[in-house]
């Protein structure tokens, strides 16, 4: 799909921005529709998909682990004094565990991946577009959308839940370390308490929304990169706007996920 020119050419800047916003949403929706059409059609680029899963996972794993560990530590350190004041320090594992698994782990991991994966895909595909590599694929009879876009979106969708699991575990470990050092709580007791507190109702929605986070991150990165224009400057713009848009969409998806989960809880 050739991305249309920005529509905002009138004199009212507010109206122009609004038009551009809706044009962007329309183009993104069309791009997502094309993804689903191409995704279901053979041939399936399984080798490239595995390579992308490895690349995307490998690219983000260390960052997710380090950030997760620090988040766990900080969260425990920040909450501890308040919980002590309320005489509820024994609830620390429950509070931290549920917060991390249900909300903080998936969202923080998704935001890191929005920065890492979406910008990486945006820059890579943008650079391929600018240097005519995508055109070269097209001319050689390979569908570049299927080879480059479908594989990356599917890889991001599959990899993000795994990264969330690793991130959650390390965050819980960071929190456990604080409790162990400051509250003399053993690791075993800490984790037993957390697992007793957690239910499928906590794990399942978090895991499902992680798939959606991965999908929007891959989708936005590919959309921005694949439709990159304006030469090398366009590559920078593609990477930058991919991060901003992906981060924003992570929060939108999170809101929708929490809203839907809440409806199910009420039922």
């Amino acid at each position: 799909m050739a991305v249309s020119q920005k529509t905002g050419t009138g004199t009212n800047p507010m109206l122009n921005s609004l038009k551009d916003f809706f044009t962007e949403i329309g183009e993104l929706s069309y791009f997502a529709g094309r993804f689903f059409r191409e995704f279901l059609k053979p041939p399936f680029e399984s080798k490239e998909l595995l390579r992308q899963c490895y690349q995307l996972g490998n690219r983000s794993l260390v960052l997710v682990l380090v950030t997760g560990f620090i988040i766990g530590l900080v969260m425990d350190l920040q909450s501890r004094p308040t919980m002590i004041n309320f005489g509820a320090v024994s609830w620390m594992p429950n509070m931290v565990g549920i917060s991390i698994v249900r909300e903080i782990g998936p969202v923080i991991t998704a935001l890191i991946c929005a920065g890492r994966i979406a910008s990486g895909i945006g820059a890579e595909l943008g650079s391929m577009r600018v240097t005519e590599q995508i055109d070269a694929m097209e001319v050689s009879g390979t569908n570049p959308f299927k080879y480059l876009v479908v594989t990356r979106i599917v890889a991001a969708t599959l990899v993000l839940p795994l990264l969330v699991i690793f991130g959650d575990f390390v965050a819980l470990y960071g929190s456990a370390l604080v409790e162990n050092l400051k509250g003399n709580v053993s690791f075993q007791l800490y984790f037993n308490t957390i697992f007793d507190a957690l239910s499928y109702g906590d794990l399942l929605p978090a895991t499902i929304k992680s798939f959606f986070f991965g999908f929007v991150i891959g989708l936005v990165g590919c959309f921005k990169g694949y439709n990159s224009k304006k030469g090398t400057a366009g590559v920078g713009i593609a990477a930058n706007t991919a991060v901003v848009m992906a981060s924003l969409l992570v929060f939108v998806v999170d809101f929708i996920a929490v809203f839907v989960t809440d409806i199910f809880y009420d039922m």
Partner: protein
Amino acid sequence: MICKMEIKEKTAAPDNPIGQRKAVIEIRDLRKTFGNNTVLNGFNMKLYEGENLVVMGKSGSGKSVMIKCLVGLMQPDSGYLEVLGKEIKNLDRETLDILRADIGFLFQGSALYDSMTVRENLEFPLRRHKEKLGKTTETEPLVLEALENVGLAQTIDLMPEELSGGMQRRIALARTIILKPKIILYDEPTSGLDPITSKEIIDLMRSIQKKYGTSALIITHDVDCARVVSERMILLVDGINYAEGTYAELSESNDPNVEAFFKK
């Protein structure tokens, strides 16, 4: 590095005069506009079997747009485009992909896939079109043959970033010919290269044409390249084919617009 670029002649181009040969590409009244900028305004052209046709024009005159329309990378606003007897506009994706196996395209900046080795770059077109060559499994001999044609067999496991600009252009040429196309479209084949490397590329283009009997459409503003490779030339000015003839005919023209191309 000394490169082996001699290619044994296998298939010669047809011997009959160009005008009597079959047209492999036909363009009629091609028009393309970007916003308010009309780049092609009724361009006409025929490329005949085994011919080397050069289209010259200033930067931004629509030369690249024209060849991108030919392979379906861009859609023209209007006009008739026929390649190897098939009208491009009427082709579905599947048929267009099959047709593309008979059209080689050398991009201006080489367009090598920078995340793949030279071997993987050359294998890439074979993923889809290997059956065209009547070979079902082994890609290695095809890759080696293409690399030997451009004298760079030793670079097979290198990454594009490890190659010089001239070597990248030759690898791109090897990738272009790996499917033994009937037509090769060259988009500024010598741009950005020093005169010696440009000459190497031009020699390769001629050798490939002799070996495989391909028809070649060469887009360039390099007069030296045009002089050496062209059998016929078209000058693209203001979106139309302004002048047409052999290099000798055009270089002696007194028309100021034509003269401008040949002034040193």
